């Protein structure tokens, strides 16, 4: 028998446990789905909130950072819905299908549910309640992990999006999942979404989070079929605690491009669990984090090459002002027989202040012998030589810095293939830069 000696539960852990006990009977889903919750809760209850002694959470100790667990969010009221209607401005310039969630709850009247051939959209609450076949097949199974934040999400998952893109379908418009914090009193939301893109289909999906001081734990399971392509963008600009998990399985000859922007976000943990399960798949995983004040952004990735002849590229940049703290942990695992894997990871931090902190931790675990894997990490200040060169041409101090920061960010943003999202994300980055003054 395993006996783990654990410290007393924190106030937040106790609150989460009693929140679960209070709502477990009312949470949607019966049978296997109910046991999934129960098992997940047991895992969370045993492990507690992730803390610094858990290697993957070393730099983001939730036992310390999460003083209180806020009460579970109530269904949105009129004021909350009004906020939801205005939310997601970052991608407003794009013609996309908006699906709006306020404090984690799907709001159909604010969402675009017009029909499109090959596309099925349901809310997770409804799908769980009726024991939807797609949900029963995939939820909790896309990428199994012991991670306590994912377990807590599975225990308390209330709502989210369930999207199915049928084989061979090319979605006409991007889908934009708009998440807004709507209530005045800080609350906690546990969102679980499932997106299944079948063989040979194409989808562009974006997710935006903005608003107040609430706590968000969201998880997205993304199942990409053979020969399909998914471009997935995420922008987080919330003032509360945001823990996001992306669990992905990609089939053969698929393409997965993703980009995450965190700007003016108070406390973010974005974790990715990606499995390349079929041969010949390409993955481009990128992101830019812009931090100031005491903001903290942690990007932790586990990329598992389970089949050969796949390539993955990870490129992350962070710009840190004031006492901003950026964490990047990227682990690439190449399974035995995943020969001809080509995986490269690069993370660079630009420190604009002496008090900023960047922690970069790349890891490689390679069990195949014919692979090309590499990683690099840098952290440094703006190059004074570059700045002098620009200033010697008449560009003032602030503008020279802004131009160099823009260039630093631009290198990664420019890699985004989708023009509309590239422009929207660059504009958001420039907005951050302008506010710097």
């Amino acid at each position, binding site marked *: 028998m395993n006996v783990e000696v654990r410290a007393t539960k924190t106030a937040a852990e106790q609150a989460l446990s009693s929140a679960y006990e209070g709502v477990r009977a009312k949470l949607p889903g019966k049978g296997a789905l109910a046991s999934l919750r129960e098992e997940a809760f047991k895992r969370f209850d045993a492990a507690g909130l992730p803390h610094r002694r858990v290697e993957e959470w070393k730099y983001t100790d939730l036992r310390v950072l999460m003083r209180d667990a806020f009460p579970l969010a109530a269904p949105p009221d009129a004021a909350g819905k009004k906020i939801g209607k205005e939310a997601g401005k970052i991608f407003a310039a794009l013609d996309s299908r908006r699906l709006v969630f306020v404090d984690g709850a799907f709001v159909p009247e604010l969402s675009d549910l017009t029909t499109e051939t090959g596309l099925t959209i349901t809310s997770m609450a409804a799908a769980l309640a009726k024991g939807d076949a797609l949900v029963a097949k995939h939820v909790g199974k896309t990428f199994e992990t012991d991670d306590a934040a994912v377990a807590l999400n599975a225990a308390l998952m209330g709502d989210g999006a369930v999207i199915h893109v049928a084989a061979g379908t090319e979605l006409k418009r991007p889908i934009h999942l708009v998440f807004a914090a709507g209530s005045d009193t800080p609350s906690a939301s546990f969102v679980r979404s499932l997106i299944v893109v079948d063989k040979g289909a194409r989808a562009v999906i974006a997710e935006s989070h903005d608003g107040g001081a609430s706590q968000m734990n969201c998880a997205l399971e993304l199942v990409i079929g053979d020969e399909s392509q998914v471009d997935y963008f995420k922008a987080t600009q919330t003032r509360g605690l945001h823990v996001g998990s992306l669990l992905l399985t990609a089939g053969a000859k698929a393409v997965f491009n993703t980009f995450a922007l965190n700007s003016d976000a108070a406390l973010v943990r974005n974790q990715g669990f990606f499995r390349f399960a079929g041969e010949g798949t390409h993955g481009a995983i990128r992101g830019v984090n812009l931090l100031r004040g005491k903001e903290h952004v942690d990007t932790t990735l586990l990329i598992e090459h389970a089949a050969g002849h796949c390539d993955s590229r990870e490129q992350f940049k962070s710009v840190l002002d004031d006492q901003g703290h950026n964490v990047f942990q990227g682990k690439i695992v190449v399974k035995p027989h995943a020969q001809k894997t080509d995986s490269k990871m690069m993370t660079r931090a630009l420190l604009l202040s002496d008090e900023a902190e960047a922690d970069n931790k790349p890891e490689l675990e390679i069990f195949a012998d014919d692979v090309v894997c590499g990683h690099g990490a840098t952290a440094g200040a703006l*190059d*004074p*030589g*570059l700045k*002098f*060169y*620009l*200033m*010697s*041409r*008449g*560009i*003032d*101090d602030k*503008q*020279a810095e802004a*131009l*160099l920061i*823009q*260039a*630093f960010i*631009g*290198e990664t943003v420019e890699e985004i293939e989708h023009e509309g999202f590239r422009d929207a994300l660059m504009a958001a980055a420039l907005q951050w830069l302008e506010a710097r003054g």
Partner: protein
Amino acid sequence: MLLEIKNLHVEVEDKKILNGLTLSIEKGQVAAIMGPNGSGKSTLAYVLAGKPGYTVTEGEVLLNGASILDMAPDERAAKGVFLAFQYPVEVPGVATMTFLRTSLNAQRKLRGEEEFSTPAFIKLVRDQANDLGINQEMLRRSVNVGFSGGEKKRNEILQMAILQPLLAVLDETDSGLDIDALKTVSEGVNRLRSPERSMIVITHYQRLLDYIVPDVVHVMAKGKVVKSGGKELALELEAKGYAQYTDEAA
């Protein structure tokens, strides 16, 4: 007199590099500065442009009678000082065209002039770039990234042509150039000679001065000017070397 440098003493990281340098440049004059390695030629160039880390402990630098020593590099640029770098730096992510436009408009703004309109600016750059053999593709690329040594130097001259400075300091513009590139660059510089514009051409070798013929030649050694003369002084240096000056100054 456009530029007057009086008894200039400069230290870099507590090491004295310039030791009471005195030098005047007349309006419209092209002055060559020659001298051995370590004589302080590049330091002089950087001090004029205002590079951080160069501490002036004594003396003055007057441009049109007003001191520039308290000015930031961008303010000096707006007053008409331009440095063509010996080693132009690469600026990844900043397109050459953006860089040129931002520079020109920043200077014009500081001088209270109107910004250039986009079409007028593009035409201006295109014409100047053509003369220097710089193609459109290079202008779209990040500043100096992936440029050969010769392309970097031509890009410096292009910037000078766009910014139209009153005082251009060319720091070993000939280094790393083959004979064809040297000719192109020199022709570019010569096109910019005007009664309104002065130039300081810093070089080790007489060769550059066959193409950019100076009005005067100054020899620097151990942080000051030790001899001045006409263009024939360069030929004399080529024949006899610098040893006599370094010994004299010792």
